């Protein structure tokens, strides 16, 4: 029983980190049909900005998150205008993959040059650091913060996409961009805003997830597979999908580590194989035939 509770706590925390970082990628792939392999690179930029803001400018953690998200979106604007805009929704996957992996290497090189090859941490405020006793065990306080962030993100996105006018326009542009254009929806603006949203979520995830996935120049490549797996298991573009995939994969990974650590990543990938076999478009994905 105690073990089960332990597993549940760790699953929730790890799953939420996966969710926060992957949801931006999921939106990008589901709504814009861009396989953005550079997503991790943008998350990493967010992490570096937050680390710099706290360690060198001595701002508060909450302000640093804001700086990271806004800063990363500003950095991404030239990429959007010059490169991404050309590949939304229509181009061949090979071009997307080549372009975004190129951007990834470019960002890794620049970051390595500017910030150096070593790890950068994002110091936590006293309120969030250290262990917190929750009765049957102690958990890192920061994990609870991450869980709360995950729930808030999922809720906010759901409201945005399902309940606002922007959400209606976005769904219209996604379902039939030609028709949406004809009805007077400025699809390129909708896309640009969605791109910014996806990048901003990536940066946010990079900052709050940094305790588990530390920021260093090769972050962008190291965790690329993990992010892509979450999106493909959950189904691109679906909030529920990304959430349930993150929790399921977190569960598989955590349970494996508790009960049979010698199997390594076996259970994680077994779960991936079984789900993708049963649901080729992911748990909540739609086929885009």
């Amino acid at each position, binding site marked *: 029983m105690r073990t089960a509770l332990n597993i549940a706590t760790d699953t929730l925390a790890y799953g939420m980190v996966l969710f926060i970082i992957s949801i931006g990628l999921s939106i990008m792939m589901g709504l814009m049909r861009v396989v953005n392999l550079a997503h991790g690179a943008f998350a990493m930029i967010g992490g570096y900005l937050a680390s710099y803001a706290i360690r060198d400018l001595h701002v508060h953690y909450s302000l640093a998150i804001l700086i990271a998200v806004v800063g990363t979106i500003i950095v991404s604007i030239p990429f959007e205008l010059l490169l991404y805009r050309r590949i939304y929704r229509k181009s061949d996957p090979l071009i997307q993959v080549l372009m975004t992996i190129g951007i990834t290497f470019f960002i890794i090189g620049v970051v390595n040059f500017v910030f150096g090859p070593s*790890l950068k941490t994002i110091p936590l405020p006293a309120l969030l650091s250290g262990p917190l006793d929750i009765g049957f065990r*102690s958990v890192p306080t920061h994990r609870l913060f991450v869980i709360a962030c995950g729930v808030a993100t999922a809720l906010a996105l759901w409201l945005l996409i399902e309940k606002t006018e922007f959400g209606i326009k976005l769904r219209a542009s996604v379902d039939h961009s030609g028709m949406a254009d004809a009805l007077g929806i400025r699809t390129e603006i909708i896309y640009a805003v969605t791109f910014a949203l996806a990048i901003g979520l990536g940066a946010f995830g990079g900052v709050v997830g940094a305790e588990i996935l530390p920021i260093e120049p090769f972050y962008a490549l190291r965790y690329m597979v993990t992010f892509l797996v979450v999106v493909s298991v959950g189904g691109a573009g679906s909030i529920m999908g990304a959430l349930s995939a993150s929790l399921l994969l977190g569960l598989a990974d955590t349970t494996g*580590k508790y009960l049979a650590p010698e199997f390594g990543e076996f259970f994680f990938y077994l779960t991936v194989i079984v789900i993708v076999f049963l649901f080729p478009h992911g748990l909540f994905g739609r086929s885009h035939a």
Partner: protein
Amino acid sequence: MNERAKSILTLAILGLMTGTASADVIKVGVIGTMSGPYALFGANYKMGIDAWVAEHGNKVGSHEIEFIYRDEEGPNPAKSKALAQELIVKDKVQYLAGIYFTPNAMAIAPLLEESKTPLVVLNAATSSIVEKSPYIVRTSFTMWQNTVPAANIAFKNGARKVAIAVSDYGPGIDAEAAFKKTFEADGGAVVEAIRIPLNTTDFSPIMQRIKSSGADTIFTFLPAGPPALGFIKAYVDNGLKADGVKLMSTGDVVTEIDLPGIGDSAIGMLSTYHYALSHNSPENKAFLASIVKNGGKIEDVAMTGVAAYDGARVIYKMIEATDGQRDPEKAIATVKGMKWISPRGPVSIDPETRHIRQNVYLRTVTKVDGKLINKEGDTVFLDQPDWALSKQ
């Protein structure tokens, strides 16, 4: 052709021949990780060698020494083998040095005897590498060399029940075996042994397992960087530090490069290692000063820098003994038993194993003037051999 032209030509040829004999260039091929995630360690090869050359000149007798660097990139044996072949055949190097990863060293070993090229390994730390060719000398360290003292000191400091958590790859498994064997021989018990997959990011479950095993001390080995950081954070955040469970490792986990990133949670952590940046000796001060003078930065210095500095010394000695001729037997025989004071302390090349013997120090992570360092204490294990190779 008349007589005069002939004699001029003969003179010219003679001149060329004597010219090459007196002012020849001896090339040394250095294979290291110059790009990618391990680039800093490759850069350290260059820093260490540059420091040595700056202090001792680029000439041994009348022979000019030229170092040629090649990029090993990552654990890629086929690529390293191709690089070594190219260096030997095209660039005609007389010595090879470097190699960060064990599999890469294993791939190069068979080429050495055939081409009569000695190799000075500057990092790759699996014990058996030196057994793969009689032409290999190593100036770095091995997992066994640093782990056996860790187990001894853990028992001496009162540890009785230890949980071992290592990364699931070659050096991790070496560390686990070395610790378990030594600690159990001392009379302690290993209550939990966990092999952690290399790409693990969440260490919380592992900490819970250790907690429920009732261990009083954790011994760990993980590659420096994100895994080490995540492990130490999980150790603190899951309350094991507060519960008084001790954490020990080899120095690979708490490198001076990563300490600022790990932060204050590392304070008090014990580790055993052959080199600390803060090692207090005139040799180390001179070494670091010479690194800085050549454009290096103190905060970038890693163990590979010292290994390269000492490696350059070994190569210079070999060139001196053979007078620039390709004579690997003589070169290797000369450096067997060679003794000197390195920036890390007194060292020697073990004549049996061709691996470096050195002191291993017990260090504590301490904050001095706002900077985290590995502070060496009074506990020093003198003249440690590679315990896996030595029969003693």
